[in-house]
């Protein structure tokens, strides 16, 4: 029997509608490129913009945007106090019952309207791509239609990945599309599933050319600056970044500014605030300009499955400085030869000073990064990998 051609993407938020997030951006871009390749695509998401409150800020309904049919569904009501209590236990590594695990997932982000839509239209879809793994919406949708479910887990080495219920998710879905070899290895360590059930796809990046002085000129930045782009929260390591930069400025007496783009509040020491510039949520062009003008792109997160912003910084010819505990980011720095990694503050200070004092070496590292991303993450390369995964796990003939 021939399967339909149409595919669905399920993601708790739609990137760009006031929401910022790597997994959301990745799924959206895969969907856009699948649609551009001639595959009919439905993007199923919620009306929420904030991954803290999951409040319905956007109107429900269907909207055509970025060449996609995006279906917005309302999120369900949540028992936040109990959700947070369970989350705290998981975070601290305390034992949590399977009932509580499921309660936690059900009360994170969940949309019975979206799941009902999937139930009604499941047979219309050749494959349902879902992610990230740790949200109830992806979890319950995948297990409701496991034979069509292709998980894009965006897996991190974090306590949530060790929940008992996650074993079922990874073992029952038809296939997994990982972003990197390191993410796949982590999944193999944590769950038991055959290697043949997984593919490495990732996300493509379009080349760009920007003026590396434009961002600093527009915002009156006269001192050199380092940049972080993305969500600002403890899990992403931004408090560590602020503490390190404050200490770096005090100890080295170098006037290096810290620039942020993205969303979320920044918890910075008072003495750093005059030397911190928060550009907030900016356009892609402005983000790329900010990257191109930076001394280095700093990525202090240890929980990454794919460093999209790091690769974008490489494409902007800017070297990376990442945390040594993030095996995915270190692996990207290693493969590209365009980034350094620090274990602790002494490493950070030493490496940032080195980057500041060696502009030619910095340019050479940036150039290596640009060539690496242009070669390995060009969209035609990623589209081919995506189509191969689709054919392997959801062949047209069932």
């Amino acid at each position, binding site marked *: 029997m021939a399967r339909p051609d149409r595919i669905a993407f399920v993601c708790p938020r739609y990137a760009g509608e006031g929401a910022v997030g790597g997994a959301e951006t990745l799924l959206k871009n895969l969907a856009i490129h699948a649609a551009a390749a001639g595959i009919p695509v439905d993007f199923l998401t919620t009306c929420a913009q904030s991954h803290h409150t999951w409040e319905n800020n956007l109107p429900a309904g269907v909207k055509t945007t970025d060449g996609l049919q995006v279906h917005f569904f309302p999120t369900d009501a949540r028992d936040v106090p109990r959700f947070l209590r369970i989350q705290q236990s998981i975070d601290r590594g305390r034992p949590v019952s399977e009932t509580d695990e499921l309660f936690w997932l059900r009360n994170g982000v969940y949309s019975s309207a979206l799941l009902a839509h999937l139930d009604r239209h499941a047979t219309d879809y050749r494959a349902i791509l879902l992610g990230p793994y740790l949200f109830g919406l992806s979890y319950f949708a995948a297990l409701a239609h496991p034979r069509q479910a292709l998980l894009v887990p965006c897996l991190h080495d974090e306590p949530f990945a060790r929940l008992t219920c996650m074993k079922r998710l990874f073992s029952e879905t038809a296939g997994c599309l990982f972003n990197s070899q390191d993410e796949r290895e982590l999944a193999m360590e944590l769950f038991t599933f055959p290697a043949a059930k997984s593919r490495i796809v990732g996300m493509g990046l379009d080349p760009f050319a920007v003026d590396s002085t434009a961002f600093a000129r527009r915002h009156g930045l006269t001192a050199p600056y380092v940049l972080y782009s993305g969500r600002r929260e403890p899990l992403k390591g931004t408090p*560590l970044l602020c*503490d390190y930069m404050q200490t770096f400025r005090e100890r080295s007496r170098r006037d290096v500014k810290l620039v942020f783009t993205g969303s979320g509040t920044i918890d910075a020491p008072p003495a750093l605030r005059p030397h911190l510039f928060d550009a907030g949520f900016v356009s892609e062009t402005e983000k790329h300009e900010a990257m191109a003008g930076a001394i280095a792109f700093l990525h202090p997160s240890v929980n990454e499955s794919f460093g999209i912003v790091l690769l974008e910084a490489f494409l902007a010819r800017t070297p990376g400085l990442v*945390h040594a505990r993030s095996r995915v980011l270190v692996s990207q720095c290693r493969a590209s030869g365009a980034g350094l990694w620090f*274990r602790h*503050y002494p490493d950070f200070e*030493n490496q940032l000073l080195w980057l500041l004092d*060696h502009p030619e070496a910095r340019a050479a590292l940036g150039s290596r990064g640009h060539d690496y991303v242009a070669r390995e993450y060009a969209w035609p390369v990623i589209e081919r990998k995506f189509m191969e995964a689709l054919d392997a796990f959801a062949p047209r003939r069932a």
Partner: protein
Amino acid sequence: MSENSILSIGAPGFNVDRLVADLQATADRKMKAGVYADARVARAEKTNLVNLRGSDDFVSFYLTCLREAVFVDISDFEIHERRRFFTPLLVAFKKAIWKILKFYTYRLWSQQNQINGLIITGLEGMEEQTAARLAALEQRLARLEQQASGHGSP
């Protein structure tokens, strides 16, 4: 840090691992020389401690930094006023408040300093003791492994 690493960055076959290893070795040497034994480093590392649990040397290094931060500075300091109006009056007022409160706060702070000092000494002692015990156990394990493989004396 070898200049060769810098020169070869643009060359084919360049290995960034070597560059990072060079830079990390420089940082390690400077740590040993006491360049980072600084209260500000201890403060900067507070959010990174969870990532350093696997590092053998880091706890002792962190305690060295903490030793620099442990005592609250209770000495007098120069009092400034940033407001442009009534500046001398405001400075005099602040100085008076400082003098009045000093009698009470000095006692509290000196007690806090005593406690901080005792805690850090205790922590350092525990760390030294644990390190010595681990070293002895590792030596014993190595000896036993050697005996078990039949290469050591019975």
